[in-house]
């Protein structure tokens, strides 16, 4: 997602908020920082689902 031209810090926040709302999860500051690609996002959600 970082490679997208429209990507900026606000898009980053909006995506993290949408995910927390949609999947009903809380994200830590590290998880939010790392959340810069679809694969990172999927991995994070997978890990949360497992625990």
């Amino acid at each position: 997602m970082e490679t997208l031209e429209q990507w900026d810090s606000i898009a980053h926040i909006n995506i993290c908020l949408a995910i927390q709302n949609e999947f009903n999860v809380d994200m830590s500051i590290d998880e939010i920082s790392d959340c810069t690609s679809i694969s990172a996002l999927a991995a994070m959600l997978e890990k949360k689902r497992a625990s």
Partner: protein
Amino acid sequence: MKLFLTGNSTLQPLARALAPYEVAVSDFNDYRAVLAGLRDSALTDQNAVLFLIDGMELAAENGFDTAATARAASEYSDACGLFAAAHPSLIVIASTFRLPSFSPRSFGEVIDPLGMAAIEGEVLNKIATASRQNDNLYVFDLGRLIGHFGERAAYNSGMRFFARFGFSAKFSQALTDHLKSLLSAILLRSKKVLALDFDNTLWGGVVGEVGAHGIELSQEGRGRAYRQFQFLVHQLSQRGIILVGLSKNNEGDADEVFEKNDMMVLKREHFSQRFVNWKEKPRNLESAMESLNLGLDSVVFIDDNPVERKLMRDMLPDVQVPEFPESPELLPDWFRETIIPQYFPAYRLTVEDLQKTQQYRANADRSVLKEKLSLTEFVGSLEIDLKFLVNKADHAVRFSQMTQKTNQFNLTTRRYSVIEITSMIASDRYDVLGMEYSDRFGREGIVGLAILDGDTGELDTFLMSCRVIGRGVEDELMRMIERLAAGRGHSELRAVFLPTKKNIVSKDFLSSQGFAGVEDDKEDGQRYRKVIHVETEDHRACNARTEAATWPSHQ
């Protein structure tokens, strides 16, 4: 409507959820500069400014020191009132905030005169006082909303430390929903009528089966939930929302509940109309709204039966039909937390709002009399007393409300804010004329409004509440405006009818008042003019701009 958002944290994530409002967001943590008037150039084309303060950030910025936090809070709340007074043409919304529940001072915090609890109380007190004094200032009680939601659930540390956005995703949604309701309240978008089913809505069970004393309505259990729902509906009707009963029942069975079951909070007189029969509810509602002279888009219909709800949605799509809670114990909270903010948002109430149910009842009494007499006899027997208010700034809120709410008998449908009305009253150019109505059945309050552009001799606005139409009082309002125009030296009064979907009823009014249509190349409406003559004595009476005139008529 354009909204400018400022505060002490990141706010961009809230902007999108506030659509359809157009939102501009200030620089980060720039609210003090906005309050100090240093950002006025950014506000010139905005309609409203919202100051949204995150109390957790405020405490953190001040090192969790209560004295420093108290100073910052006090500066903020003082500045809100001053800012609103200095920007009378802006809607100013000031939030309260929630300071952290747990702090280093520990349990003693609560008795500390500079403690977090005391600071919150003082902020609310100051901005609420300022809101009472400034019609353009509104309090957004964010602190209380966080209390309702839960501080833990409302805040999110990950986002707060990553991006200085401290609200959780769920709470952000609640916050923007709540804010949109407040904006609806400010813009006077409340529905006017609540239509209610009886069985399993006002009480548990079917009265036709279990009898007036067998229904669930009591001080215990589920019966208590229904009773509390009735208390809330009653309070809403006290606020001026009109109640209509729609029940499929034998009339006698329902009557018996109202007469004999002393657990009933709602009495017969709280309903402006009740339809207890076996006809389709949409048909009954249509006739109710016709006799109330209100549009179907001003009704909310509550019924536990999904079949009735679907029928209403299918037949009368303009009526709002919310889903019904799954279990009766949820009824009171659902009504308070969802239905009232969503459909009946309100901020400032006028005397007319508070008297509305009574007024509609008085109208029902009048219609009984009307059936017995001819129209002229009927109007004569009402003993109508009209009082004219010329350029009375005290009534600006009601005048603005009338321009916002009146759709049918309204020649131009121009909507004005309180601020615009106030400045018209203050200017020499306009005459703002209100008409107060009372008769032997009661006071209706201010029911007519006309605005004269004194420079051009044109009727800018002419509107009447539909409650009083057909009693000749519209003639009196027109006579009075003609006198005001003549008093300013005009020998001709000009007017325009701007057609809308809803004001067809007033289409022929100007011709009926002796106005002649003017051929005009403008396409937006029909223009009219009328030659006016007025005796000199009246000129003087009307030129006294602040005097109220009393005009008894039909006696």
